[in-house]
């Protein structure tokens, strides 16, 4: 059984900006452990000679030529924005300069 405890789930929830109740945290700790174990079984199937990969399809070097394509107008870009001002997206101030 994978070692995922309640604190791990609470930490991830905080990073992902997801609010979770105490019950949800308890339940997810158990469920996530089962999911991780299920995924782990895949690596057991691969032999020692199989390197880890993040892409199941054997493709590489998919590039685009450096040629300008289509753009939106500011109006189009902002059409789905909850709020805007001076052709820019308007967002609440967040104290973090990174």
């Amino acid at each position, binding site marked *: 059984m994978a070692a995922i405890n309640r604190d791990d789930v609470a930490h991830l929830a905080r990073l992902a900006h997801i609010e979770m109740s105490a019950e949800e945290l308890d339940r997810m700790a158990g469920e996530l452990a089962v999911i991780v174990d299920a995924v782990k079984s895949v690596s057991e199937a691969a032999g020692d000679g199989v390197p880890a990969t993040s892409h199941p399809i054997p493709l590489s070097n998919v590039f*685009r030529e450096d040629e*300008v394509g289509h753009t939106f*107008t500011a109006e189009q870009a902002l059409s789905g924005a909850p709020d805007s001002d001076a052709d820019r997206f308007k967002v609440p101030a967040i104290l973090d*300069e990174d």
Partner: protein
Amino acid sequence: MSTDATLSFEEAMEKYDPVLGFEVHVELNTKTKMFSSAPNVFGDEPNTNVNEVDLGMPGVLPVVNKTAVESSIKIGLALNCKIAESCRFARKNYFYPDTPKNFQTSQYDEPIAYDGYLDIELEDGTVFRVEIERAHMEEDAGKLTHLGGSAGRIQGAEYSLVDYNRAGVPLVEIVTKPIEGAGSRAPELAKAYVAAVREIVKNLGVSDAKMERGNVRCDANVSLRPHGRERFGIRSETKNVNSLRAVEHAVRYEIQRHAAVLDSGEPVIQETRHWHEDTRTTTSGRAKSDADDYRYFPEPDLVPVVPSREWVEELRATLPEPPAERRKRLKQDWGYSDLEFRDVVNAGVLDEIEETIAAGATASVARKWWMGEIVGRAKNADVDPGQLGVTPATIVELSKMVEAGKINNKMASAVLDGVLAGEGTPAEVVEKRGLAVVSDDGPLLEAIDAALAAQPDVAEKIRGGKVQAIGAIVGGVMKATRGQADAGRVRELILEKLGVNV
């Protein structure tokens, strides 16, 4: 805002040994963005250089810009790095409105270039090797403007406006290994390192390299340790130090601040610092915390970049001569002294002198004009010498006129003023301003007679063989002709008149 205590730089250096590290972000000057075909252009109307990929809309797929990869490989090669046989992109997850995707596409465990170095020449010629840890590809973020509350500051702002034109612009982040042993030259080295990186990317033609536009941005890491200790102290990271001068000042300030903290017996806090150009100080940003858990994972929408060795060698073959080697070659070709050459480099007119020589001027004439006439005018006009509007052709024409005796040096300077004022070519300015040297001997002889009559004792000395006294007579003639006489011809005529053979 409270002011942090500092020690004097000298005292800090007596007690502690600084260790530096730099992260330099270089914006590439590709036509399009890293993962979308929207244009990469500075200064356009907000949110007009964006499409669905830059705005992180659901279901869109990024595609890597081939030219950006080539530029990244070139940067890696110019920094003497190894180029990865295979590398991939990763998502750096964080919540902040400068990225509409809630992650930045970057590289994490597999940068495209790694294990390089750059030899940095300090002002006195000392060479200091800076080891490069890695250079990786990523994308720039959008630009936030904080409004309401105190003007422009995030503290107290009520809301922010976001322009995503910059979101997705290709970036290469160059990370050094810890730089040890710089000692009291740490601030100078910091400036020289960033200047060298900027020069390299400009020379490669892969970035516009304008720091004032944020094309090259530096985060400076500083830590101190007592002399003789191997273990590093705790570092601070000063963000977005965006001019060469500021890099030097920020490193110097952080050394002085850390020294005061350590002297007080307190630990240095590992944190982000913000640089303030107006006060030349830093203030605390935020401490490293959970927020730095970016949960990097491989980008599922992009396949690995696998640069073949043939491709890498093809790109290596296109690299221009490295700036440091070029300087060595030019100094030798031009025959300038160490001091003359250093002044030329510091004045930023190396390219201009090279072009002027290519246009037909000698090395000494080109230097005389750029250093003697143009640099000073540029300083007064507060522009770079190259932007003043003086072309190599103008200098060549002026110097030919001087050599032919049509105008003298003083007039040539006035002609240059005329050219810069838009009065036309040097020949046209000479014509319009009536600046030609008086070469008709008639008016000169009259002026010489007058000058000799005015200073009979000097005339007597010259007759007696003291030819060096002739300056006073020549000066009188030049004054009488308002500087338009050819001083060499005046001298000849005076000697002739007095029957002195030299």
